[in-house]
C-alpha cells in the first residue's frame, strides 16, 4: 500500500518558482500547503543563476516597464505573448521590491538602492542603447533568491518533503488530483492527494552534452504530463548561452559582458561588431551563440582545434572583476586554470534554458490544447512552464523574473482555487503505473548501461539539434531517438536496494530525458523557419505568415507524436526584423 498524504495545495519543485508559489499559497490561511522536491530545496538550480533579475526600477538610469516589455517581445522574436510580457514587466518591479523586503541582500548603489547593471537585449527607448536593468547581488543573484525564499519558508514553517522524487501525476477525468512520489531514503511510494498541484520542476538541459544545467535537470515533469496526453509548448526553442566554460559548460554570466567583457576570435577581432553593430556583445543570446558558431565554422575559432572563442575581461579593472564577478572568476581559475584578470577565457555556447515547456495561461493554469482549455487543479511556473513570456528566445535576467512573478501568481491562483473547491475523489491504484515502471527497470536483465545511452543522447542532440538544425540532421535524430528508446528497454540496474537507490532514479530520469528530446526534435523538424533560438540552415528566414504561432507537441496513445499549434497573442508591437 502506498503511503497517503492530503494537502490542499501541493507544490512540486523547491527552486525559485516552487518556493515563491508555496509562500504565496500559504498566505491563504484556509489552505494547507506542502512542497515536494527531489533535492533539498537549497540544492535547486536556481542557486546557480548568476547575473541578475531584470526589472525597470530605474535606480541607475531612467527605465520603464514598457521598455522592458518591448525588449522581451523583440528578444523573443515576436513569439512572445504580448499581454504576458506587459503584465510581467510591471509585476516584476513589485516582485523585486518584495524580495528586498524579505531581506535579499542585493548589491547597492552609492545611494543605498538596489544596484543594477546592463544585460543582453535590455535597452532604453525601444532599442536605442543598453540600459542598466539587471538587479544583482554580485554574481550570485540566483543563490540569494533561493536562500532568501528558503529562509522565509522556514520562518513560515512550510511543510517540505525533501528527496521525494515525483514519478507520476494523477490526472482523472481531465482534472489533476495530486502526484505519486518515490521516497529516496526508503524506496517507498507515496501518494499525495491535492486539490491543486503546482509544477515547478525547472529545466531539462541534461539532454545536451555541453550544458550549464545541473545533473538533476532532466525535465521530469515535462515528460510526465506529456505521457499523460498533455501538450508541451515550443520545445524547439532551446537557448544556448554564449559563454559556457570550454568543454565543461559551466556558465560565465552575461553580466561579464554587461561589465564590459568582449568576445574575440582567433585574430583578436571583436566580431560582434559585425553581427550587432549597435549593442555588439550585448546582443541577445541566440544571436551571439550563432555568431560564435559561424566564426568557428569559418575557421576563426581559437585553440588547437579552432573550436572555441575568447571572452576577454583583461581590460576591466581587476577590482571590479573581483567585486562584481567573484564566482565566475573562481570557476575559470579552478576548472580551466585561467585567470580572467590576466588572460582571456576560452568559452563555447552551452545548453542553458528551455523557453518552452508546459503551456499555461497568464494565471499559470496548465492548458490542454491549442484552444486554451485549462486543466482544473493543475498549475505550472518557472522554467518547466511556458506562459509564452520568452517566445523564441529568452532575454538574460528574465528567467529569475519569471520565477518570482509567475511563481507568485501560481501560489495565489492555486490557493484561491483550493479554497473554493472540494477534494475530488482519489481512485485506488493511482500508483500502479509508477510502481510497474520501477519494477520493470529493476527486473530488466539486458546488457545496456544507462550511462551509455545518455551519453549518446547528449552527443547526438548536440550534433543534430543544437544551435543549427536542418531537415537532414533532425530526421537522423528522430531515428537515433527511436533506436535509443529501444535500447532503453534493455537497461538493467545493479543496485537492488531500497535505500537511496540513486542508480534506479538515474534510469528513470533517462527515460524522462528521452521524452524531452523527442518533443524538441519533432517540434524543430516541424517548424520550417528560423526564429529566435531555432535556427534552420535550410530555412534561414523568419516566416511570420506561416509560423507566427506556438508549437504544441502531443504524444498519442499509440506512442506516435502529433504536432499542433496555438495562436500567439499580439499587441502594440508589430513583428519587425530583429536587428540590434
Amino acid at each position, binding site marked *: 500500500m502506498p503511503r497517503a498524504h492530503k494537502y490542499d495545495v501541493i507544490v512540486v519543485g523547491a527552486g525559485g518558482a516552487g518556493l515563491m508559489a508555496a509562500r504565496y499559497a500559504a498566505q491563504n490561511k484556509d489552505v494547507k500547503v506542502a512542497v515536494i522536491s527531489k*533535492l*533539498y530545496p*537549497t*540544492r*535547486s*538550480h536556481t*542557486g*546557480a543563476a548568476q547575473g541578475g533579475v531584470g526589472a525597470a526600477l530605474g535606480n541607475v538610469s531612467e527605465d520603464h516597464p514598457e521598455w522592458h516589455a518591448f525588449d522581451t517581445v523583440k528578444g523573443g522574436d515576436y513569439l512572445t505573448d504580448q499581454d504576458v510580457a506587459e503584465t510581467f514587466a510591471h509585476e516584476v518591479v513589485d516582485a523585486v*521590491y518584495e524580495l*528586498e*523586503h*524579505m*531581506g535579499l*541582500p542585493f*548589491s*547597492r*548603489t*552609492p545611494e*543605498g538602492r538596489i544596484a543594477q547593471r546592463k544585460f543582453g537585449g535590455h535597452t532604453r527607448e525601444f532599442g536605442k542603447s543598453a540600459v542598466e536593468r539587471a538587479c544583482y*547581488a*554580485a554574481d*550570485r543573484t540566483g*543563490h*540569494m533568491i533561493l*536562500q*532568501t525564499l528558503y*529562509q*522565509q519558508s*522556514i*520562518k513560515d514553517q512550510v511543510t517540505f518533503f525533501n528527496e521525494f522524487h515525483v514519478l507520476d501525476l494523477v490526472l482523472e477525468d481531465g482534472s489533476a488530483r495530486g502526484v505519486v512520489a518515490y521516497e529516496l531514503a526508503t524506496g517507498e511510494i507515496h501518494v499525495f492527494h491535492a486539490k491543486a498541484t503546482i509544477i515547478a520542476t525547472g529545466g531539462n538541459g*541534461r539532454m545536451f*552534452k*555541453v*550544458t550549464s544545467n*545541473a*545533473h538533476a535537470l532532466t525535465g521530469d515533469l515535462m515528460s510526465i504530463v506529456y505521457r499523460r496526453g498533455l501538450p508541451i509548448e515550443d520545445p524547439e526553442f532551446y537557448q544556448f548561452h554564449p559563454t559556457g566554460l570550454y*568543454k*565543461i*559548460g559551466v556558465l560565465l554570466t552575461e553580466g561579464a559582458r554587461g561589465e564590459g567583457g568582449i568576445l574575440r576570435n582567433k585574430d583578436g577581432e571583436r566580431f560582434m561588431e559585425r553581427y550587432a553593430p549597435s549593442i555588439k556583445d550585448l546582443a541577445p543570446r541566440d544571436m551571439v551563440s550563432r555568431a560564435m558558431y559561424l566564426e568557428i565554422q569559418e575557421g576563426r575559432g581559437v585553440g588547437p582545434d579552432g*573550436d572555441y572563442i575568447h571572452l576577454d575581461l583583461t581590460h576591466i579593472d581587476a577590482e571590479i572583476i573581483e567585486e562584481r564577478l567573484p*564566482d565566475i572568476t573562481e570557476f575559470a581559475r*579552478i*576548472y580551466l586554470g585561467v585567470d580572467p584578470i590576466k588572460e582571456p577565457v576560452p568559452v563555447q555556447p552551452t545548453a542553458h534554458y528551455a523557453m518552452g515547456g508546459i503551456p499555461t495561461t497568464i494565471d499559470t493554469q496548465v492548458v490542454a490544447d491549442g484552444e486554451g482549455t485549462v486543466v482544473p487543479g493543475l498549475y505550472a511556473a518557472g522554467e518547466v512552464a511556458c506562459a509564452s513570456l520568452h517566445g523564441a528566445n529568452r532575454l538574460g535576467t528574465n528567467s529569475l523574473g519569471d520565477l518570482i512573478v509567475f511563481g507568485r501568481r501560481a501560489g495565489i491562483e492555486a490557493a484561491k482555487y483550493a479554497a473554493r473547491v472540494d477534494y475530488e475523489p482519489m481512485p485506488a491504484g493511482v500508483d500502479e503505473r509508477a510502481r510497474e515502471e520501477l519494477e520493470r527497470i529493476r527486473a530488466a536483465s539486458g546488457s545496456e*548501461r*544507462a*550511462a*551509455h545511452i*545518455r551519453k549518446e543522447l*547528449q*552527443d547526438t542532440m*548536440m*550534433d543534430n539539434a543544437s544551435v543549427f538544425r536542418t531537415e537532414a540532421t533532425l530526421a537522423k535524430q528522430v531515428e537515433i531517438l527511436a533506436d535509443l528508446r529501444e535500447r532503453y528497454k534493455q537497461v538493467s540496474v*545493479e*543496485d537492488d*536496494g*531500497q*535505500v*537511496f537507490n*540513486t*542508480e534506479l532514479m538515474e534510469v528513470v530520469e533517462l527515460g524522462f530525458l528521452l521524452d524531452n528530446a523527442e518533443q524538441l526534435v519533432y517540434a524543430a523538424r516541424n517548424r520550417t523557419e528560423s526564429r529566435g533560438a531555432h535556427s534552420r540552415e535550410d530555412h534561414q528566414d523568419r516566416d511570420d505568415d506561416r509560423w507566427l504561432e506556438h508549437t504544441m507537441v502531443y504524444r498519442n496513445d499509440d506512442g506516435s507524436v502529433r504536432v499542433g499549434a496555438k495562436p500567439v497573442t499580439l499587441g502594440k508591437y508589430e513583428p519587425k526584423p530583429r536587428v540590434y
Partner: protein
Amino acid sequence: MDATTPAAGTSAPPPGLDTMNVTVKIKRYDPEKDARAYWAEYRLDVRPTDRVLDVLNQIKWEMDGSLSYRRSCAHGVCGSDAMLINGVNRLACKLLVRDLGSSIAVEPIRGLEVVKDLIVDMEPFFDSYKSVLPYFVNDDPEPARERLQSPEDREIFDESTKCILCAACTTSCPVFWTNGNYVGPAAIVNAHRFIFDSRDQATDERLAALNQPSGLWRCRTAYNCTEACPRDIPITKQIEEVKRALLWRQA
C-alpha cells in the same frame, strides 16, 4: 564541435596521452547488506582535469552502479557533495584530480549518520541551521520601494551570504565530531548573515539562540571549518565577531 570531446556528464574519456591511472578508495556502506562500512578500491583511467565528482560518476556509470552519493550542480554552488577526500572536507565537484595525485580516498563527512555510501543524514544539520532563526525579520511597515542600505553596510556581511549549506565546515569541526549537539559553524555563519545586516531587527533573539549550552561558546577556534569552506568564507573570523557581538551586547 567535435563529437568525441568528453564533457561534464559524459563517461569514460577517450584513450589518449592525457589520461592517468588512479586508485580510488571509497568507504562504502549499504545498510541493507553490510554490517559495517568497508573500503572498496577501484582503478581507472581519468584525466587530470577531471573533477573528483567526474571520477565518482565514472565509477558509478561504468564499474559499479550501486555506488551512491548526492550531486547536482557539478560546479560548487549547490552544496550537495561535501565529502572527506584525502583527509579533508571538500566538494567533490570543486576538486580536480591533478591536485590529488594518483591515489584518492573518499569517505562520507563525519559526525552525521551515514545512510548509504557517501550519503549522510542531513536532518540534524538543517535542524541546527533552523535553530538560529536564519531568516530576515523586520516588523516595520514595508516601504513602497526598497529599504536603503549603504554599500558599506552591505559589505559587512557579504561573505556570510555566500554559504551554500554544504556542511563541509560543521563536519570538519573536532568539537562537532564528539558533540553532535554543538550548533556548528554553518549555523553561526548564517546567524552572522543576519546579525550584521543593518536592516534586520531580530539580533537579540538570534544571539539568545546562540547563547545556549550547545551554542556559540562551544567553538574552540580550531579553524578546520575555515579551511574546509568551499566558498572561502572566513568562518572562524565570523564566529569570533559573533562572540564579541554577544559579549558586548550582554555587557
